[in-house]
């Protein structure tokens, strides 16, 4: 058991996971109120991955993210307010309303942005890793992508290149079993994406992606290896999204028993139990965290809702530097 971690670290991990969960539930609610334009891809259910990985990173380390990226932003340290404002298309959002749910970035915390082209973040992560190497910093890059992205050519090109050049990149595959509505077993003849690491001569590990401590442990090992010049690692985190692919998807392609099985393994519930049973966290301390987050989310919503939309002509800005 990794509860050897300091209490404050554990509290922070729980706080981040819960922030993401509450944030996503709120986004879902706001969507229902027609306050969120476009679509949303919720991270609820996968919190242990983003938080487990980002807890092993420094502030100056980088991450790249995907269309399902709210959780990555929050885990890396982006503010709830500006994240929410971006999702609502407001001027005060991280991208001044130009990116929206699928393109949030906060370069100040090393969040290099979410790309909504599946698999497109991998080469960019390799570039950030190369940059760290050439600038002789010891920064590392965590690159999030889904199991669907592991079938893109960029997966092969990027991991091969990162391996050949021993770059400090951690490839984090969030395997939630479905690429939109297509079950992994229908389109791939391997069960574990991590097995593909063999092809690149790098370590590949499969972990329970709903166990934040397991993710943290695997990630910390990969981060240490990368920072020490040992090159990339592929970590596959088996997880499950609570909702459908996007807002309009009721996810009827997922068997009921499967959904129930995964909901029973809810990463947040599990971590809370671990905290209460295996550490000196008291019920009231956990409750305190929960109340604080509820208030923070309300503040974020208030900030986002009350913020102005950008002026239409701002659409013409930021095309060129």
């Amino acid at each position, binding site marked *: 058991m990794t509860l050897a971690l300091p209490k404050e670290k554990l509290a922070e991990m729980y706080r981040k996971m819960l922030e993401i969960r509450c944030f996503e539930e709120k986004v879902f609610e706001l969507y229902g109120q027609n306050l969120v334009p476009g679509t949303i891809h919720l991270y609820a259910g996968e919190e242990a991955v983003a938080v487990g990985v980002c807890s092993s990173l420094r502030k100056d380390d980088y991450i*790249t993210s995907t269309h399902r990226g709210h959780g990555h932003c929050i885990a890396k340290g982006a503010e709830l307010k500006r994240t929410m404002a971006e999702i609502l298309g407001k001027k005060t959002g991280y991208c001044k309303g130009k990116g929206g749910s699928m393109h949030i970035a906060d370069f100040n915390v090393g969040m*290099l*942005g979410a790309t909504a082209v599946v698999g497109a973040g991998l080469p960019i992560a390799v*570039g950030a890793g190369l940059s760290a190497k050439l*600038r002789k910093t010891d920064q590392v890059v965590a690159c999030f992508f889904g199991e669907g992205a592991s079938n893109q050519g960029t997966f092969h090109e990027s991991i091969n*290149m990162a391996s050949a050049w021993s770059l400090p990149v951690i490839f984090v595959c969030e395997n939630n079993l479905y690429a939109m509505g297509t079950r992994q077993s229908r389109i791939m003849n391997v069960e574990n994406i991590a097995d593909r690491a063999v092809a690149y001569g790098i370590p590949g590990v499969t972990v329970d992606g709903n166990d934040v401590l397991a993710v943290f442990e695997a990630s910390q090992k990969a981060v240490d290896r990368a920072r020490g010049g040992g090159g990339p690692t592929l970590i596959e985190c088996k997880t499950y999204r609570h909702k459908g692919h996007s807002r309009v998807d009721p996810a009827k392609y997922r068997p009921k028993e499967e959904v129930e099985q995964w909901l029973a393994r809810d990463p947040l519930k599990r971590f809370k139990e671990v905290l209460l049973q295996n550490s000196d966290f008291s019920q009231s301390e956990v409750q305190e965290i929960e109340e604080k987050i509820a208030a923070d989310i309300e503040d974020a919503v208030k900030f986002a809702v009350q913020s102005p939309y950008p002026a239409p002509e701002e659409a013409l800005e*930021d095309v060129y530097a």
Partner: protein
Amino acid sequence: MRRMTYREALREALREEMGHDSSVFLLGEDIGRHWGGAFKVTDGLAQQFGDERVRDTPISESAIVGTGVGAAITGMRPVAEIMFGDLTALAMDQIANQAAKIRYMFGGQASCPLVIRTPFGAGVNIASHHSQSLEAWFMHVPGLQVAVPSTPYDAKGLLKTAIRGSNPVLFCEHKLLYPVEGDVPEDEYTIPFGVAEVKRKGSDVTVVATMYMVHKARNAAAELEEEGLSVEVIDPRTLTPLDKKAIVDSVKKTGRLVIVSEDCKTGGVSAEISSVVAEEAIDYLDAPIKRVTGADTPIPFSPPLEQYVIPDEKAIIKAVKEVV
């Protein structure tokens, strides 16, 4: 004035910028010490700057450009080489969706000072996958800049500007231009983007030409002069940004416009330039605009076939005579 080839001028620009700024590095297939680039542009640079800064890559165009993007948004100034322009198709997502949009999507948080050098153009009998001129693809992507140098002087000055800039640049070279010689001063200089150059002064007809076609247009203009026709040859030098004013001003003076570009006619460079003039100077035109362009075909292999689909001096002369 010192003479050097287009290839040497490009290499000198890379050498100078790598010397000035340690964040500048090169990556591409076979650009390093063992080959020096398919067209030898980077020859000798790995020996001077080391293999870390002149990186041979796997054959992975998408990852080459994507790696450039990731490095560019984290403080480096990568110059990626895509061995042939046709192969930019393999990297199109990283060019058009990532490099070009990253600044905009993220509300101006990031700059992406990435230069992608690649040779376009037909004329050396290497058929459909190594010969096309695709500059217009990139004109259609807001966020990218597109440079199209025609001379060693322009190649050097524009490449230095591209490397020092803050935007992604598709730096188009032309295979037939690599051995072409021209004047290049000893002293360092840069050429701003969006400033066309009058490559030959004239008063009867404006010919806007790009890249290798600038040379054919000049040859045609010299022949036409003997027949008493004064042709002004304008080289935009960058397509994005495009120096509309220089083109429009020349047309206002001559009242006649011929556009010469090697890329396909449909949806091409010439289409955009015609539209600009139609919008901004149609009242000054004394004749319809003429376009001399590549045929709307892939580039064929056999020499007579290839020559047939590329504009030549004869076609330019014919077009000029049709508008006067």
